């Protein structure tokens, strides 16, 4: 399997590895995938009161393309609003990393992780407003 230089760069030097405090009301967590399928992504975003993503961290169990996809989106997410984040398409990730067809599912997973993290922060905000 030949990897693109961008995949190799993210794999060798992953950006924003780690976790945020999941109990922080400003932090949304998205965990997608399954160990049985060979990939699990955990994406955490910290959103300020203006709805802008201040920080993003990830941990990924998966192949090089899965690690690169999640590393890339953490870079993309910082400074964006949650609406902009929600609009990121897997095809943009796949294109940026030049993923081969058998690895497209890695970019799908990264998109799903963003959507799950955004949904989590929205649920937290809604719960806060209801309280």
């Amino acid at each position, binding site marked *: *399997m030949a*990897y693109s230089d961008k995949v190799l760069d993210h*794999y060798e030097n*992953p950006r924003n*590895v780690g*976790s945020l405090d999941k109990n922080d009301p400003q932090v949304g967590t998205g*965990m*997608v*995938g*399954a*160990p*049985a*399928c*060979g*990939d*699990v*992504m*955990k994406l955490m975003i910290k959103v300020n009161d203006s709805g802008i993503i201040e920080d993003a961290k990830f*941990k*990924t*169990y*998966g*192949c*090089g393309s*899965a*690690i690169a996809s999640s590393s890339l989106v953490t870079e993309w997410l910082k400074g964006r609003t949650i609406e902009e984040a929600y609009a990121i398409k897997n095809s943009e990730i796949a294109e940026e990393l030049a993923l081969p067809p*058998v690895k497209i*599912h890695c970019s*799908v*997973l990264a998109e*799903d992780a963003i959507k799950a993290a955004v949904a989590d922060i929205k649920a937290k905000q809604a719960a806060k407003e209801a309280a």
Partner: protein
Amino acid sequence: MSASIEMQVLKGSEHDLHPIYLDYSATTPVDPRVAAKMIPYITEHFGNPASRSHPYGWTAEKAVENAREEVAKLVNADPREIVWTSGATESNNLAIKGAANFYSAKGKHIITVTTEHKAVIDTVRELERQGFEATYLDPEPSGLLDLDKFKAAIRPDTVLASVMLVNNEIGVIQDITAIGNICRENGIIFHVDAAQATGKVHIDLEKLPVDLMSFSAHKTYGPKGIGALYVRRKPRIRIEAQMHGGGHERGMRSGTLATHQIVGMGEAFRIAREEMDEENIRIRRLRDKLLNGLQNIEEVYVNGDLEQRIPHNLNISFNYVEGESLIMAVKGIAVSSGSACTSASLEPSYVLRALGRSDELAHSSIRFSIGRFTTDEDVDYTISLMKGKIDKLRELSPLWEMFKDGVDLSKVEWAAH
């Protein structure tokens, strides 16, 4: 661990471009002594061994018969019981299809094991398409076959059983004597795939209750493209030819003999016979060193029985680390992964699944196979490399984080995709 090895691991090394070869179960380099012996039979002694009318043919025939004797000697068989083939895949096909078809009037049921090589499993599947019935037995979690389960699978119409001697992925050694005795008691023809066994375990076909046995040259420092099938003479086992033509090999396998390849296999098997005891001691020491080094890492699991196993194979799962990224990380060594993620299938090893290993553990496995040219330095480098890369990948792994937080991963509801 020497400082220079640690530097190599950290900074990358020459091994990234020329990885250390630890995939001897996939294939072995041809021993230089074997190559030297083969060359004259490509150039000057080029005759067809079937040519009876001139010295070119006689010279080639003599070389073929010498090699046949060497192959027979390694497994204590009669040279007349050795049939040349193109490799173990052809030997397995010839043995299984040949015997099943010849004896099909006796019955049409075949027993084999789910951890066999595809050359056996797919051959039996083909026979199923032709009207045979088959039972595929799961081994125990150790990789070894439960003899009672084997007995229970026998039917009045069972005609053939096929069980490998040494498993290619996990290196476990099946109890061929016991299985063969059960076959004898029940009048079942017994085939054994020994492709991974020659030069590693002693094989004595005068004593072993085995009727057909497959061999390969390239797993034992011989060339690719040549193998052999042992066909017992007493009591005589008959097989239907699968390749028809000039009636070579007593009609069992037609086709001009590849003299140079055969000479190579003979020489490789001679060396194996003379050197295996000493070599196995050395390889066991290296294996123990590798195992001890890797077992210092948390959450590692050896796949397959560690006692009833050749020392050349170490198949280990590194929990919470995904197989393909692991292979990517360890490019300084040439190993094989139990995870076939590099193909489009995303399927973990069927052998590890048959042992009852979870998908995660099956995905996270690496097969290290040690051989004739492996050194202490190779093993030191490998241990150091694995430790460093496993640490790095676990730092990235959400599963490792959850495990460290005490989360029971089997209770998590995953969003499967």
